[in-house]
């Protein structure tokens, strides 16, 4: 197992180096001058040049690149052009909120999606199956800025069970949970819709396999046939989808963060892009990529647990 993990981590190094380079190039290819953003619309070329010099943006690109690369490899992504605070501390401030939302959404998505998907597969073309497919279609069709606002209207404004806005106090677990419920429901239901469909499809395939028929013929109880033989073999595509989705959620939950006014990685990525905060954008994208690598690694490890043939290969 350790060798497997090490091999995967070593394979991630060239990926991260490529990302560092790509991020540096992409950030500078995007039009828009950070100095102009800082100085506003009355900026003169003289003032813009002075600010560019102060920020070190007037140095040759290669110098900037090696400077960035050297610092990044030491874990130093520099300071934000906007706040002048270290990027890592900005990320540390919001990362717990992102992790909370991602994990809670994943739990809701899996807790609803997997059983419903199995149930639908077991009742193929029956009422339950049709209902599950219909509801998952509705779930997938609602963008989060619509479903989120609906939830806010119902639970925030009408019943007043949850606040419409408000950042959670990270030191207060109850407050943290209270303010997590609606955003996690918004994303979790969307994820559940997707997982339901994948689980149903994987289970249908699994249920039609010979080993399932054999198990039933041997008199294995139905519950065991479904949950042990069926689900274990259907689990690979489900884990793949969940892994992919978690990766997407880490950076792309920006709409949910905006609707519920939560801090998060997605929101600061968008902010850094709008402000042309190069160091922040670079740092965030590298950290984001690192998180994706970790999620993929965990997914790969789970493959090995679910299907020992993967580990052997």
């Amino acid at each position, binding site marked *: 197992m350790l060798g497997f993990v090490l091999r995967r981590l070593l394979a991630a190094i060239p990926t991260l180096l490529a990302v560092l380079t790509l991020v540096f190039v992409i950030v500078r290819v995007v039009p828009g001058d950070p100095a102009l953003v800082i100085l506003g619309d*009355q900026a003169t070329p003289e*003032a813009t040049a002075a600010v560019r010099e102060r920020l070190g943006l007037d140095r040759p690109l290669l110098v900037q690149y090696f400077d960035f690369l050297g610092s990044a490899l030491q874990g130093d992504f520099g300071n934000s052009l906007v706040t002048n605070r270290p990027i890592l501390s900005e990320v540390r401030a919001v990362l717990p909120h992102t992790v909370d939302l991602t994990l809670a959404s994943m739990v809701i998505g899996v807790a609803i999606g997997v059983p419903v998907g199995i149930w639908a597969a077991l009742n193929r073309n029956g009422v339950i199956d049709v209902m599950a497919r219909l509801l998952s279609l509705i779930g997938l069709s609602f963008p989060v800025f619509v479903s989120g606002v609906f939830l806010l209207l119902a639970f925030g404004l009408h019943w007043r069970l949850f606040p*419409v*806005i408000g950042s959670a106090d990270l030191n207060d677990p109850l407050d943290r949970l209270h303010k997590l419920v609606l955003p996690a429901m918004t994303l979790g239901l969307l994820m559940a819709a997707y997982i339901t469909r994948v689980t149903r499809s994987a289970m249908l395939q699994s249920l039609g396999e010979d080993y399932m028929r054999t198990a039933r013929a041997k008199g294995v109880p139905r519950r065991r046939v479904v949950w042990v033989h069926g689900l274990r073999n259907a689990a690979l595509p489900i884990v793949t989808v969940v892994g992919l989705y978690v990766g997407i959620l880490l950076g792309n939950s920006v709409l949910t963060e905006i609707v519920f006014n939560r801090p998060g990685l997605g929101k600061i990525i968008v902010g850094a892009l*709008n*402000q*042309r905060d190069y160091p922040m954008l670079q740092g965030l994208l590298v950290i984001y990529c690192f998180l994706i690598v970790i999620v993929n690694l965990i997914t790969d490890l789970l493959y090995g647990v679910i299907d020992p043939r993967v580990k052997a290969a």
Partner: protein
Amino acid sequence: MIRRFGFKAAILAAALAFSTPVFAQPLPILRVGMAAQDVGRLDPHFAVSTIDRVVVAWMFNGLVRFKPGSIDPAEIEPDLAQSWERSDDGLTWTFHLRPNVAFHGNYGMVTADDVVFSLKKSSTAATSAFAADFAAFETIEAVDPMTVRIKLRNPVPSLLGILTNYAGGYIVSRRAVEERGAGFVRSPIGTGPFMLDHVTPNQSAELVAHEGYFRGKPLLGGISYRFIPSDASRDLAFQAGELDVNYGRADQTWVNRTRQLPNVTVDVFEPGELTELSLNITRPPFNDIRVRQALAHAVNRAEFVRWRGADVSREGQSVVPRGYLGFINDPGLLPHDINRAKALLAEAGYPNGLTIRVIHTQLPEMLSGMQVLQQQLRRAGITLDLNIVEHATFHQQIRQDLSPMVYYSAARFPVADIFLTQFFHSRSIVQTPTAVTNFSHCDKADAQIDGARVATDLVEQRRLWAEAQRIIVREVCAVPVIETLLVFGRRNNVDYGYELNGSMSLGPLITEKTRLR
């Protein structure tokens, strides 16, 4: 023993009862919702976005200030300076500072040294976004610890305007800037009624009352300035009572809907942001004045106001916003006349109309305005082929002179000189070393703008500004379209402590007198 213990307990209880302090009720916190993702730079000399301007106005003072609730330069009053005098030629100004004005925290009292440092910082391009405003400053010196003298190279239309509680006029603590260095952008020290406690990124800036504020202790305990980019969420939070003041959309539907909420007042106030179409008069097709006139005839200002809403907007009347010192309401704008527009186009060699490729921003409020314009011009046979780009890209590309027509909205210090200089003086033409925002390449009124700036006679100054506006309109360097006012909602228990008719900080000024009833 028991009796002795009981006696002691009774004495102790009585002592406790008499010694228990009567705890004062904590002062309330004002919760303000703002349409923004995060606050940017809180160094007032870099506060260029609306979100930053609003909050620095609560934390800083200038030598002089606009009367709260007003943007009328005639109502500028003492702030950190208690008096001032000017030389007869208007080139030397001496300011006498108010004594015992405390900076936030333990940064001591304001001295002439802080004022000199602040104004020099403001006038330096590397340390201020407003350095260009101070171009006429020759020297800034401390005469004594409470007196500051400013010498100008040439007279400026409103020196007091430059020194107000707006843009580069804010006074900062020299020691704080030097101690905190680049970190000052997020840990500013001023003299205002509120001081920064902390910023939670992407969430809020928390301000606490400055108890040593020189005008008296604020009636609020603090301000929670919350960044809520989603209009829907912000409105819901306001409706749910989670906000006391809410940034509003300059849109009649929003105003009507918000006015229907119980115990809510909608404030609509100055300065109006003027939207103009700058036409590059040096390149085809707008190097032909007939095409520019055709476009001016095709614009329907009344329809723009109907679309935006009569309570929150008004027709642009000149190339300078209404109410600015030097504004005239009869510069000779061409009336809306589609037939005349078509005839002029035909005369200019475009009988079948023409297509113009224009760069524009994806910022929703500006994009929707451009789409209205697109429909209006289509009726006259002018097709706008919009190249929609992200907002920062828009600002960069229009400054690279890549768009023959620029749809631009702006508010400036309310004196005609600023607008005329930045948008219509040849010095400000984009892609030149001294460029600002002259996208039209207009140089037709340079003499009048320069003449007005150094005129010592106010009547002559106004005459020159009026003439400049007439020339620019006659030459159709730009077409004024609409002025959009600022809109904020507030719960009725919020008393600003003054009547809100205007605010140069683009948001309600929260003063020591602001309270929650």
